[in-house]
């Protein structure tokens, strides 16, 4: 019927880029399972998959009570030694039975939630992407948030991050399509200062590649959001130009080199990134911000030179 998920992204609570051995320990959330890593084009490591069993109401735009039983998959990752993510998702399918089955049934289908009774995919998708749902409805955000908490509370972190910043939440929902020749597409919406909603239509055979894509989009959205917030508070704050630039320094050192859109994303779903680059145009806004910072720094240097020669 559909796949949905939520990604929470935040600044890893450590003063420096976390080295590999510590990263492996922080992400070792499931004893006996391996932490996967890749170094190129950027250091990236991801925890083993965790399963959370759920038996609760599913979101629905119509307000209908739909019961869902199954499991949610979640995982945590660290990119560039600085950015931490908690990500949870599940595929929703129609249950073949009209009642809850034994747990062994659900455990053989990790990451699948079966909707019991009458349910329409579009109704659930709109409910998930829309306004808040009644208490007791499946809360993927809580699962992703806790997965990120598990990373952030590790005693391997020194808890002296280069700056303080908010987490952002990216809620995403994918409707599969069987229409031949259709490319993956998506719309992106900023719902609140910290919540983004991504609604995608993807050829059925490529739905599996979506989790990586959404985590990558969430990462870049967080980078952009964080940079803009830091620029706002640094550049509008009191002090001389040099002091204002100095306040931006940690952000420059920590964030600027992490921008690498779609680096780990499957070819088949790249069209989604491309369409989002047209609107809202992540990279365009990122580059504009980076050049504004560079201009400020150049002006700052010029001012210093002038005062030195005056």
């Amino acid at each position: 019927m559909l796949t949905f998920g939520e990604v929470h992204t935040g600044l890893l609570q450590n003063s420096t880029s976390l080295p590999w051995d510590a990263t492996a320990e922080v992400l070792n959330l499931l004893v006996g399972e391996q932490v996967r890593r890749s170094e190129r084009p950027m250091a990236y490591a991801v925890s083993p998959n965790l399963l959370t069993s759920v038996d609760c109401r599913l979101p629905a735009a119509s307000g209908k009570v739909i019961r869902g039983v199954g499991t949610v998959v979640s995982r945590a990752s660290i990119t560039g030694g600085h950015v931490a993510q908690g990500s949870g998702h599940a595929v929703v399918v129609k249950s073949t039975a009209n009642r809850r089955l034994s747990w062994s049934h659900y455990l053989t289908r990790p990451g699948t939630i079966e909707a019991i009774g009458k349910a329409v995919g579009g109704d659930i998708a709109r409910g998930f992407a829309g306004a808040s749902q009644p208490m007791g409805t499946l809360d993927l955000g809580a699962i992703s948030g806790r997965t990120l908490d598990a990373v952030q509370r590790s005693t391997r972190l020194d808890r002296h991050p280069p700056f303080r910043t908010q987490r952002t939440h990216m809620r995403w929902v994918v409707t599969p399509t069987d229409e031949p020749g259709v490319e993956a597409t998506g719309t992106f919406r900023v719902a609140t200062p910290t919540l983004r909603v991504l609604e995608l239509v993807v050829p059925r055979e490529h739905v599996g590649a979506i989790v990586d894509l959404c985590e990558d989009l969430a990462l870049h959205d967080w980078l952009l959001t964080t940079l803009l917030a830091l620029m706002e508070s640094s550049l509008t704050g009191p002090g001389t130009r040099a002091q204002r630039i100095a306040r931006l320094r940690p952000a420059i050192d920590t964030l600027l080199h992490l921008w690498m859109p779609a680096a780990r994303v499957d070819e088949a779903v790249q069209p989604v990134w491309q369409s989002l680059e047209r609107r809202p145009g992540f990279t365009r806004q990122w580059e504009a911000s980076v050049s504004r910072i560079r201009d400020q720094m150049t002006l700052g240097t010029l001012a210093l030179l002038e005062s030195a020669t005056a």
Partner: protein
Amino acid sequence: MLIFATSDKGGTGRSVTSSNILYRSALQGSDVCYLDFDFGSPTSGAIFNIPTTLHGTTQGGLHSYLHGMVADPQRLEIWQESDRSSLRSRPPGAGRLVLLPGDSGGGEFPITKENTERCARLFLHLEEEFDLCLVDLSAGRSYATEMVLAATANEALRNIRTRWLVFHRWTRQHVLAASGLVYGERGILHTGENHGHDREELANSLRFVRTAVVNPDSPELEGLRPAQIAWLRDVDRDLSELASSRKVGRTLLLGSIPLDPVLQWREQLISDNDVWSRRIANRETLEQFDSLAKKIVDDAAWETL
């Protein structure tokens, strides 16, 4: 950084003073949040002029969060939600000012492993985004105090800087009560030790703040007779001696807030406007709030004694 605001007696000015301190630190540019852990009487909404939350919230506040009823507690952005015009927009250069209200009709509750764990998780989470989190506890030896002592003893919170402000009025009863709350039986140090804190470390992270103090040298007392002023001075000196002997004296004093006519009549934030244009609040009060806002984050004021 986590700041815990406590007092032995109710009505000492703990909430009003700590709200004003936090407001000044937001104006100084820090991102700050205020957590209303006074579960019996959540008054912070009134101090920050949030019309929907005058006596706590019904939208899943800290109470609901700690009981596991909501995944995250409600947050109110003061610069957007306050109905007081001087608070309604964020002044240039100011940081975020966020309130996490208590629930209306909440009430105290005993601590459990679960709510202590949720409390620790909340502190860790807020520490990611705020320079300063100020937790207003219930007066006296409360469950709230025990919960935060248990939560901050958690190994994951070890590296978070934590400081305690103990508020008291400048009277004999209040000095004795404040001393008892810190050093006495089942006091903060004792309870902290039971939960795994190092007693000395905890004692070093704790300072006193005097509220509604009448300064005998204040020009405002010019109307008093010489005999009255002399008497005030005597009392003040005796109190100072008592305070020192009870380890509540000058060496552990972080600040003194003068008695202010505006605060005497209303629990509120004092704005620059109240002092400079409307001239209803005293300049000295504002300066003390400003100075405390700087001192709570200034390591020099917290050097080991």
